[in-house]
C-alpha cells in the first residue's frame, strides 16, 4: 500500500509541477574541426541560446542559481578538459545578484585526441544540463552530439568562425603584476574587506571583480570603487567566511569596459597582508601625506577669505583692536586660545567624519542616502545663511551671534577667545563643504589618524593669520577700521552665498526627479518667506509674535510636507536604441516618451495620461522600462527616430512590446490614460 502510495505520488509529481519542460534554451554542440589528426586538441563548443529575457548561469551563480554542467560521453582516446566560461553579466534583481548570460552563451571545452587514435568517423556525445530563469526557474537538459573525422590532416569545420568568435568572449589571461589583492580591515567577525589594485594600461569603465566559487568562503557581490591611486584602479569587496580559515587567494575575473567593449581578465590573486598598523585603503607614503597636509593647511588659510568666514574676521578685528591696547603677552595668549577653539571644533568635525566613515564600512551603500540628505541639507543651510546676510532674519544666540560673540570675546578673556574660534569654525562650515570637498573626499578613504591630522591642519590654516597678526601687532595697522561699511559688506556677501545655493541646488538635482526639483525650489522660496515672517514679525515685531511664529512654521510645514511627498513619479531613464533593445532582451516592454520642455502637449500628456497612478501601477505590473528622449535641444538621433515613426516633432510616445519581433505601438499625439493602459497591456503579452 505504501509503495503504491509512493508510486501514485511520483506519478502525480511527474504529471503536474515537475513536467514543465525547459523550452527556453536550446543547446547545440559545435566542433572547431571537421577532420582532426591523432594527437590534436580540438576545441568543442556547447552553445546555449536563450529566449529573450531568459538567462543561464556562470560557473559561480552568485546569490542563487547554478552552473551549467556538461557530462561527456566520448569514444576511447578522447578526453575533455575543463569548461572555459565566457565573461558573464552581473545581474541584480530585488537585491539578489547573480552572474548570468542572456541571449547566448558559448562554453568552450578543449578535447584532447590520443596519439594512437585510429582513422575513421567518431561520434562525440554529451549531456548538457542547466538552470534557466526568467520570472520562474526551470531545469533544462539536452543530449547534444557532433561527428569528428579522424584522418591525416586537420580541417576546420564550418563552425570554426563561430568558435573563434566565442573565444573572443573568454576572459584573457591577466599579465603578471596586472593586479594585486590586499586585506583591508574586518567589518564583522565573519566578514573582511579585500582591496583590489589594478594597473590598467587603458582607461577602464565600470571595473569589477567577479569571483569564482570559493571553498568555505564567499566574495560578496557589492563592489565599492575607491579613488584611484597613481593611475591604479582600486576596488573594495567583502569576503564572508562563516567557518574555517580565511582564504589565501582569490580567483575570478576582473571585468570592465575598454573603448566601449566588455573585457575580462582571469586572475588568481594571493591576498597580501597590509603592514600592521596601516590599512590597505591607500598606500602609505610620507610624501603624499605631507603634500595633503600642506594642502589642508592652505585650504584652512583660504577659508579666512571665504565669504562666510569674512564676517568673523571682522569679529576678530574688533578684538584685535581691543587687544592691541592691552599687554602684548595677554593678546598672544588669547590668540593661542582662539587657535585652540578652532582646533577643538575641527577635531569634533573630524570625529563626525570618522564616525560616518566607520558606519559607512558597515553599510557601504548607505553612504548614497546620506549624500542626498547632506546635499539637500546643505542647500537649505546655505539659503538660510544668505538670507541672514541680507538681514532678513537674525541668528539669535542670546541676542545676535555676532554681538554675543563679540562681547563674549571682549569681556571674558580666554573663554571669549575660545568661543570666537568655535564660532569661526561653525560659520566656516557652509564654505568648508564646497572648498574642501576634495580634502574631505580624500579623508574618507584614509585611516582615522590621517583624517584627524588633515582636520588639524585645516584648523591651523584657519587660525594662522590671527596668531601671526597678534604676535606682530605692527601689521595690525593694515587692517580696516570697523564701521557702517560692514553692514553693506555683509549684504554684499549674501550674493556669493546665493551663488553657492545655486551650485548646491544643481548638485541636489542629481538626487531629485523633475517634479521633486521644482518642489524643492518652491520649498526654498517658502523657506525664505518663512524666515522673513520670522525676522520681521517675530524677532523685530511689536505684537502678535505668537501668531507670526505660527504662520511662519505653518507655511514651512505645509510646503515642506507637500514637497517631501512629491516622490512617486515615474523613474525615467535616458532613451537610446541600446536601452530599448536591452530591456526587450530582458523580456520587458518599453515605454518611450519623446518630449521637450517647450512642448506643451507633451507636458499635458505626461501629467494627465502617463505619470498618473493607474499607469504607474500598470508599468510596475508589466515591469516596463520607461525611457525619455529629451528633444528640448536639437538632437539628431532623436530626430531620426521621430522620422522613423513618421513624425517631424514631439510629442511621440511609443510602446515597444516585450517580444522583440513584435511591431512597436505608436500612440496618438493627444493621450488619454486608457490609451496608454491598453498599449501596455498589449505590449506585455
Amino acid at each position, binding site marked *: 500500500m505504501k509503495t503504491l502510495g509512493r508510486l501514485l505520488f511520483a506519478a502525480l509529481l511527474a504529471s503536474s509541477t515537475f513536467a514543465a519542460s525547459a523550452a527556453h534554451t536550446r543547446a547545440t554542440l559545435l566542433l572547431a574541426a571537421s577532420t582532426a589528426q591523432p594527437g590534436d586538441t580540438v576545441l568543442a563548443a556547447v552553445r546555449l541560446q536563450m529566449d529573450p529575457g531568459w538567462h543561464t548561469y556562470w560557473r559561480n551563480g552568485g546569490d542563487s542559481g547554478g552552473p551549467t554542467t556538461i557530462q561527456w560521453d566520448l569514444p576511447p582516446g578522447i578526453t575533455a578538459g575543463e569548461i572555459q566560461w565566457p565573461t558573464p553579466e552581473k545581474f541584480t534583481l530585488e537585491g539578489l545578484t547573480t552572474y548570468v548570460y542572456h541571449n547566448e552563451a558559448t562554453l568552450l571545452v578543449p578535447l584532447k585526441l590520443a596519439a594512437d587514435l585510429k582513422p575513421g568517423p567518431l561520434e562525440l556525445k554529451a549531456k548538457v544540463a542547466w538552470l534557466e530563469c526568467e520570472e520562474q526557474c526551470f531545469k533544462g537538459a539536452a543530449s547534444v552530439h557532433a561527428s569528428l573525422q579522424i584522418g591525416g590532416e586537420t580541417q576546420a569545420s564550418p563552425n570554426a568562425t563561430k568558435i573563434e568568435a566565442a573565444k573572443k568572449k573568454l576572459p584573457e589571461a591577466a599579465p603578471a603584476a596586472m593586479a594585486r589583492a590586499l586585506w583591508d580591515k574586518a567589518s564583522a567577525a565573519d566578514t573582511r574587506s579585500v582591496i583590489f589594485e589594478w594597473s590598467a594600461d587603458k582607461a577602464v569603465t565600470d571595473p569589477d571583480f567577479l569571483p569564482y566559487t570559493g571553498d568555505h568562503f564567499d566574495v560578496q557581490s557589492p563592489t565599492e570603487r575607491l579613488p584611484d591611486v597613481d593611475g591604479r584602479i582600486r576596488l573594495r569587496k567583502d569576503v564572508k567566511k562563516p567557518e574555517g580559515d580565511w582564504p589565501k587567494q582569490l580567483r575570478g575575473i576582473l571585468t570592465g569596459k575598454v573603448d566601449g567593449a566588455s573585457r575580462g581578465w582571469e586572475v588568481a590573486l594571493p591576498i597580501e597582508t597590509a603592514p600592521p598598523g596601516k590599512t590597505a585603503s591607500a598606500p602609505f607614503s610620507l610624501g603624499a601625506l605631507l603634500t595633503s597636509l600642506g594642502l589642508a593647511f592652505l585650504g584652512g588659510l583660504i577659508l579666512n577669505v571665504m565669504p562666510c568666514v569674512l564676517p568673523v574676521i571682522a569679529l576678530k578685528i574688533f578684538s584685535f583692536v581691543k587687544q592691541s591696547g592691552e599687554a602684548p603677552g595677554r593678546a598672544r595668549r588669547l590668540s593661542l586660545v582662539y587657535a585652540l577653539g578652532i582646533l577643538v571644533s575641527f577635531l569634533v568635525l573630524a570625529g563626525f567624519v570618522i564616525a560616518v566613515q566607520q558606519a559607512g564600512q558597515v553599510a557601504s551603500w548607505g553612504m548614497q542616502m546620506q549624500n542626498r540628505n547632506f546635499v539637500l541639507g546643505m542647500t537649505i543651510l546655505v539659503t538660510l545663511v544668505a538670507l541672514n546676510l541680507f538681514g532678513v532674519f537674525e541668528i539669535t544666540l542670546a541676542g545676535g551671534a555676532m554681538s554675543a560673540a563679540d562681547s563674549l570675546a571682549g569681556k571674558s578673556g580666554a573663554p571669549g577667545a575660545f568661543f570666537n574660534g568655535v564660532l569661526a569654525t561653525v560659520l566656516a562650515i557652509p564654505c568648508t563643504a564646497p572648498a574642501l570637498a576634495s580634502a574631505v573626499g580624500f579623508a574618507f578613504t584614509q585611516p582615522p589618524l590621517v583624517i584627524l591630522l588633515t582636520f588639524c591642519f585645516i584648523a591651523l590654516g584657519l587660525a594662522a593669520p590671527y596668531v601671526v597678526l597678534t604676535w606682530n601687532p605692527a601689521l595690525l595697522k593694515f587692517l580696516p577700521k570697523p564701521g557702517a561699511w560692514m553692514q553693506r559688506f555683509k549684504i554684499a556677501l549674501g550674493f556669493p552665498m546665493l551663488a553657492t545655493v545655486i551650485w548646491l541646488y544643481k548638485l541636489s538635482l542629481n538626487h531629485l526627479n523633475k517634479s521633486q526639483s521644482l518642489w524643492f525650489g518652491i520649498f526654498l522660496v517658502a523657506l525664505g518667506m518663512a524666515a522673513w515672517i520670522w525676522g520681521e514679525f517675530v524677532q523685530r515685531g511689536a505684537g502678535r509674535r505668537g501668531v507670526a511664529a505660527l504662520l511662519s512654521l505653518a507655511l514651512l510645514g505645509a510646503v515642506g510636507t507637500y514637497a517631501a511627498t512629491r516622490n512617486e513619479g515615474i523613474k525615467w531613464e535616458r532613451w537610446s536604441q541600446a536601452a530599448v533593445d536591452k530591456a526587450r532582451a530582458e523580456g520587458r516592454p518599453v515605454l518611450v516618451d519623446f518630449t521637450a520642455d517647450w512642448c506643451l502637449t507633451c507636458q499635458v500628456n505626461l501629467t494627465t495620461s502617463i505619470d498618473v497612478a493607474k499607469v504607474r501601477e500598470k508599468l510596475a*505590473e508589466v515591469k516596463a522600462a520607461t525611457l525619455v528622449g529629451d528633444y528640448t535641444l536639437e538632437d539628431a538621433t532623436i530626430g531620426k527616430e521621430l522620422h522613423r515613426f513618421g513624425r517631424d516633432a514631439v510629442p511621440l510616445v511609443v510602446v515597444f512590446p516585450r517580444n522583440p519581433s513584435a511591431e512597436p505601438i505608436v500612440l496618438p499625439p493627444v493621450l488619454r490614460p486608457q490609451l496608454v493602459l491598453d498599449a501596455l497591456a498589449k505590449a506585455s503579452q
Partner: protein
Amino acid sequence: MKRMLTLFTLLAAAATVFAAAEIGKPAPDFTATDILGKTHKLADYKGKIVVLESYNLDCPYCANHFKSGAMQELQAELTAKGVVWLLVNSVNPKNSSHRSIDAAQKEWTAQHLKATAWLDDSSGTIGKAYGMKTTPHMFVIAKDGTLAYQGAIDDRAASDGDPRTARNYVREAVTALEAGRKPAVTQTKSYGCGVKY
C-alpha cells in the same frame, strides 16, 4: 523636508534589516497568516525550536527535495520531535509562481507537506527581514529565540539526485540544539533559485 529625512532614515533602516538575521542574535520577530487563515507569531514559539524554510515548488532545486520525498520526511521527523517548521512563501503575487490560497491548499495536500504551517509572505516581509536569498534557504531558531543556523539545507547543491545522501545541516543543527550544544556548522551559503520577491 523633515518627512523626507524621516523617510530616508526609514529606508536606510529597512536596508539594514534586509540582512539583519545574525547567528547568535535574536531572530527577527514576525506575525504572519498561514494558508488556513491561522496567525503565527514567532515570539509565541519561544521554548520550541523553529525551522524556517523559504519555499517555492516551481524552483527545480526546491522541487528536487520534495520530488524525492526527502524534505517531507525531514519535516515529519522534526515536527514529531516538537519542532515548529514554517514554510515561508515570499513569491510576489505578480509572479506566475505565486500560489493563491486555494492553489496553496491543494499543493499542501498533493505534495504531502509535513510542515507545521505554510506562511503567506507574498509581501516579502519575512524573507527580506531574514535575508532569504534562495529557495530553499533554511533558518533554525533555538528555543531562546536566537538564530542558530542559516544557509543551505545540505551540502549538495543540486537539482536532481537523492538529497538523503547529503550532509543535512538542518537535522544536524536541530540535533545539536536538542542536546544543548551549539551546532557545529552555523552558517553556509544557501543554494537554489533566487527568491521571487
